[in-house]
């Protein structure tokens, strides 16, 4: 399998706080990989570092064989690495359609209309609300918009940061169905979740993060069966 993302020995600090302590992992082409762990374990920090919003003091991040550890954020997106950030972070004062257009910012020329149609097929609710201001959408709709927006950039790797956060159980199911569908369509996904059970059910492989380090790794099924994970994250 070709490695699409290879993170090696990154160390990230917030001022004096050592948030990520020398972690390494990789994502292969076509896989769904999940990073699970408690609040404050450093999952989101890891994604932000991969996206270039934060910088590692050491090591390297390779995307499609190219070192991107000092590439500016906006160039990383151009290379095909999209992130759906924690808390969705859609543009609340812009319309649904404008949000999707921003997702296609790196896509020059035509094809944007067709891409938007594809997103609307995946998320029919967004089509109904295409002219509506995004701030008036419900939480679930906002999450769908955030995912649709990221898909507009034709990502080779899609990173999702806590897509289930703050959503009703039925919407969580729906979001994970979409993740399964994207996986089936061949999208490579790096998923960060606190909802370990759901995350492990869709993941090919998983890493468990604890206080800035990776403490366990294995296939989704292996970790779901592991006593350690059960105890810590799956409620016994």
């Amino acid at each position, binding site marked *: 399998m070709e490695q699409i993302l290879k993170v090696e020995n990154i160390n990230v600090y917030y001022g004096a706080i050592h948030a990520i302590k020398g972690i390494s992992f990789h994502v292969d082409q076509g896989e769904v990989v999940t990073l699970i762990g408690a609040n404050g374990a450093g999952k989101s920090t890891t994604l932000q570092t991969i*996206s*270039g*919003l934060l910088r590692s003091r050491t090591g390297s991040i390779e995307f499609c064989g190219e070192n991107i550890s000092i590439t*500016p*954020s*906006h*160039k990383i*997106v*151009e290379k095909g690495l*999209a*992130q759906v*950030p924690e808390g969705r*972070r*859609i*543009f*609340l*004062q*812009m319309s649904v359609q*404008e949000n999707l*257009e*921003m*997702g296609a*910012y*790196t896509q020059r020329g035509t094809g944007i209309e067709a891409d938007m149609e594809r997103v609307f097929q995946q998320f029919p609710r967004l089509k109904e609300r295409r002219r509506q*201001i995004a*701030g*008036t*959408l*419900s*939480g679930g709709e*906002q999450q769908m918009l955030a995912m649709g*927006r*990221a898909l507009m*950039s034709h990502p080779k790797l899609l990173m999702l940061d806590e897509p289930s956060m*703050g959503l009703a159980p039925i919407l969580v199911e729906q979001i994970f169905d979409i993740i399964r569908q994207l996986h089936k369509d061949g999208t490579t996904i790096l998923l960060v979740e606190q909802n370990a059970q759901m995350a492990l059910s869709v993941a090919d492989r998983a890493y468990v993060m604890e206080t800035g380090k990776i403490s366990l790794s294995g296939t989704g099924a292996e970790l779901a069966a592991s006593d350690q994970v059960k105890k810590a994250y799956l409620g016994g």
Partner: protein
Amino acid sequence: MEFLSYLISGISLGSVYAIIALGYTMVYGIAKMLNFAHGDVIMVGGYISLLSMSSLGLPWPLAVILAMLVCTVLGVVIEGLAYKPLRSAPSLAVLITAIGVSYFLQNAALLLWGASPKAYTPIIAGSVKLFEGQLSISYVSILTVFMCIVIMIALTLFTGKTRMGKAMRACSEDKAAAQLMGINVNRTISMTFAIGSALAAIAGVLLCSSYTSLMPTTGSMPGIKAFTAAVFGGIGSIPGALLGGVLLGIIESLAKAYISTQLANSIVFAVLIITLLVRPAGLLGKYVPEKV
């Protein structure tokens, strides 16, 4: 008839404030900073246009374009040298830097062009006379209002329809999310300064044409008033800048005419304070409620 004449001069003055306020409001919207040097860019625009007409003998449209070019470059350079290194600094540091840049520009103008006021020939002379000469409106006033409307429409289309304009709105809402879309935030901020400064140059020409004099501190009072107008209308809002600017101009003009020339400025600022007490976000400033 007298009232109408004061009203028209207020609208014209207000249009200049509105054009300046647009610069404040756009920069605030995107960089979340108050660029107090904006007023002084107006003054530079005034000098450049004056010198290119009087010393270089350029016709006024060329002089205006030259002033816009110089101010655009100046705005981008100021942003790059003074504000960009402070991107992650506390906002107070940026504010003080902006005040510093303002003094720097005023003193540089003092060195280059001297302290004494220079006479500024209006770019178009004359006026239309209406109602058998009872009401006279200068061509400069008409041009000012016209320019203000054109600029408003152009900016509304730019931010609403173009890729770059939408990217600006995205940056003004959430810079990190904008970066995750592939938007170059630094370039977008520079672009905003470029547009704001080009508008400042136009405002400089119009302002000097109606006051017919120019000195290094010319920009500071209109700058502060336009800032007031931007807050009054709702900072960050483009229609707010227009409404705030025009209302402020009318209030100032009517206060001068009917209450007191000395008190006019106090009245203007009193109106601002009262408005903000009632509507802290300004007249058109609004918060879109966020559903979670």
